[in-house]
């Protein structure tokens, strides 16, 4: 069973999305329409989810003017455990994406590869993250350093420029060819953007 399946077993689809969104952004409070837009949960169902979760105290309701905003209730007795479950499973991509934000201008593509992306990871597998762009290895390590505590596992970064990836693909490099073949969880950019690296001649 992959960690994604595990979360599906434990929580319904809407609840999972709402909790993943709010628990992994503990600093933020959000209006219902904002949450709906960012999670894709329909507004009607979202109202019900938010109310149930706020009734048991997992979420805090904050009236701001004539709006109500919701945020994760960090004072709840199971907040840390629940947030941990999401960080280690479905929320993993979000945690990594947040951590990589400072590098956004210098990076074209980022994705998780290896055992985790294939759903084969054991609990303590490293998270393999591939980044394509003009960014120094040391900057990547720095950006990712705080995620290790949040995820409860180590991140193994691989950093290459677009030119390096293209040259390796062309030369049939074993490692890059394997990564290209295998499933990926995209953090920045998409599978299409990745495919373009093979075609697009103007690098």
């Amino acid at each position, binding site marked *: 069973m992959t960690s994604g399946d595990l979360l599906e077993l434990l929580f319904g689809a809407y609840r999972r999305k709402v909790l993943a969104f709010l628990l992994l952004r503990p600093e933020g409070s959000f209006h219902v329409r904002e949450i709906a837009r960012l999670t894709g949960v329909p507004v009607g169902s979202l109202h019900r989810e938010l109310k149930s979760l706020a009734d048991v105290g997992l979420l805090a309701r904050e009236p701001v003017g004539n709006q109500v905003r919701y945020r994760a209730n960090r004072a709840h007795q199971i907040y840390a455990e629940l947030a941990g479950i999401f960080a280690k499973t479905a929320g993993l991509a979000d945690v990594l994406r947040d951590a990589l934000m400072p590098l956004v201008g210098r990076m074209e593509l980022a994705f998780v590869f*290896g055992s985790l992306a294939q759903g084969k990871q054991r609990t303590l597998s*490293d998270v393999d993250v591939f980044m394509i762009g003009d960014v120094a*290895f*040391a900057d990547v*390590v*720095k950006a990712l*350093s705080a995620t290790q505590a949040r995820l409860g596992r*180590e991140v*193994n*970064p*691989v*950093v*290459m420029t677009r030119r*390096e990836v293209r040259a*390796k693909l062309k030369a049939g*490099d*074993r*490692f*890059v060819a*394997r990564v290209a073949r295998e499933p990926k969880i995209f953090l920045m950019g998409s599978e299409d953007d990745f495919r373009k690296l093979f075609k697009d001649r103007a690098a």
Partner: protein
Amino acid sequence: MTLENFLRTGQLKPHESDAKEVRRLLDAARRNLRDSAATNISPENRFDAAYKAVMQSALVALMANGFIPDKKQPGHHAVAIQALPKAIGIAADRVAVLDVLRRKRNLSDYTGEDIDERSVDECRAEAKRLLDEVGAWLKKNHPELAG
């Protein structure tokens, strides 16, 4: 953590070094660094050679401070890296990079994970930098060991 704290946890042991021992290790580190440039071996072995140069340089830094990692303790490579700021004053973000390289080498050794050439280049650059830093630090602080 101070070096004395590592001593208390048993991760470091007291050690008295001499110029001969230091020279032998630094020569080995230079040799490993040179080997890591070879193009007729796999990236994994090039990485391994560069990583060895990192570890040997770190060992010299600790030995010159009067310590050595206890090789019977798990994680003695991690200790050698984490002790570097206290040993020769390198910055904490460098330790984070060296630690990532250490884990890459672990993954490669124990799970057969591939190592990409960019990581080889990073490891070689870090090895060269640390070797130079340890050399300069020795000259300044322990000229008797620098030989």
